[in-house]
């Protein structure tokens, strides 16, 4: 199983369906995007700031995917997690899975997200109100 994990401070650009799909052995391509909601603990927010222990986060994500791949064999899986300040409505995480059949792809997506939220050293560091938004980010959103 091809595995690729990435952390970025830039807006996530989901890569297009890859060459792996054109090969003819994949019947399923599933994607999940986790988006920053406009409310945290009941209060309206403008952005969340995420922080990661980067080398460990990358390694743990890779380990989780490899382990899940034994139970749900897929052809390829790619994860991109954004860190830093992420405005409401933008993606904090994207995961794409290519598999022979949809069952493996769905299991991979859903179980990866569960494991991520238990073990991957990434934190929602703080919520930012509209007045705290750096100019660059609010202009770019």
């Amino acid at each position, binding site marked *: 199983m091809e595995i690729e994990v990435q952390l970025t401070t830039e807006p996530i650009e989901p890569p297009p369906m890859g060459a792996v799909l054109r090969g003819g052995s994949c019947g399923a391509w599933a994607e999940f995007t*986790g988006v920053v909601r406009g409310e945290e603990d009941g209060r309206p927010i403008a952005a969340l700031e*995420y*922080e*990661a*222990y980067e*080398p*460990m*986060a990358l*390694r743990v994500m890779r380990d989780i995917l490899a382990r899940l791949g034994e139970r749900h064999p897929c052809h390829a899986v790619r994860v991109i*997690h954004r860190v830093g300040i992420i405005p409401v409505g933008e993606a*904090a*995480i994207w995961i794409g899975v290519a598999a022979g059949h949809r069952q493996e792809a769905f299991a991979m997506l859903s179980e990866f*997200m569960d494991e*991520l*939220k*238990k*073990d*991957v*050293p*990434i*934190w*929602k*560091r703080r919520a930012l109100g509209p007045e705290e938004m750096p100019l660059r980010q609010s202009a770019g959103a």
Partner: protein
Amino acid sequence: MMRILFFAQLKDVTGRAELEWPEAAAMSPAQLWDRLEQLWPAISVHRPATRLARNGEYVGGDTLLEPGDEVALIPPVSGG
């Protein structure tokens, strides 16, 4: 020398992201926590929920932390 990394709330409590500890001997996780509590008493409320990673791998309470290790305090994660 042992390198200690603090993330999220633990960074707020200690006021720093890392600490270079001129440590000559190995110590247990419990010994590390006791010493951190001496430096920052407010860290103790985080102790029950915080896991330790040694050189990027989660470790249990019976692992020895050695000079040269990078030890990270991992409060409950919230990625995704």
